[in-house]
């Protein structure tokens, strides 16, 4: 199963090409990708910058769990889940997920499953910086 999964948690810039190349497979007819981008506003306040931090070993473990589960649930061929940590600016890419599959329906479902689950379970935290302060996203103090 190992060579069908490519997990990355990195301070480097993510590469759409790298995620695409990894899952590309001549036996597959379809490939679904999701690219998360940093939005320039949250509830009408302009976001100046973002910082992603993580509990790194556990985040990698959870990302692997998602990938294994996606292979099992949807019968897909390959999956890459890459997440950036550190400082990101508006329009930069915190996450890329790519999935290849013989059937496109499974590719879409697995890709959506992976991003939905990542947002629920992977220990990564986003802090948004505004003109007048900063806030941990999802926390409700």
């Amino acid at each position, binding site marked *: 199963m190992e060579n069908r999964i490519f997990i990355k948690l990195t301070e480097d810039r993510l590469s759409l090409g790298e995620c695409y190349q990894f899952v590309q497979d001549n036996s597959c007819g379809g490939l679904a990708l999701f690219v998360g981008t940093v939005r320039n506003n949250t509830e009408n306040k302009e976001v100046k910058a973002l910082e992603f931090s993580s509990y790194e070993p556990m985040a990698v473990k959870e990302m692997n769990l998602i990938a294994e589960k996606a292979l099992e649930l949807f019968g897909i061929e390959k999956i890459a889940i890459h*997440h950036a940590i550190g400082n990101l600016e508006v329009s930069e890419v915190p996450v890329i997920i790519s999935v290849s599959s013989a059937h496109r329906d499974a590719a879409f479902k697995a890709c959506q499953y992976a991003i939905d689950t990542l947002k629920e379970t992977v220990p990564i935290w986003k802090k948004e910086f505004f003109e007048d302060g900063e806030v941990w996203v999802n926390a409700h103090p």
Partner: protein
Amino acid sequence: MKIHALFFGMSKDLAGQSKASVELEEGKTVKEFRELLQQKYPSFSTMDTYAVAVNETYADEEFVLSDKDTVAIIPPVSGG
């Protein structure tokens, strides 16, 4: 027994540190560990909620801790 506590996200700001060594009686659960943390860090009550991972795996309230366990405080995640 000794528990290695790790703080992330908002809990790191509230604790004012990223880790701590916490003394806990044998046989205590995650639930009891949470109560102890609440005493040590009263400001934790300003967090709506948080999950706990023991040795890098999510653990529920009834999970019984062991000596040298690493317990991470996981505020609501916001990756992606």
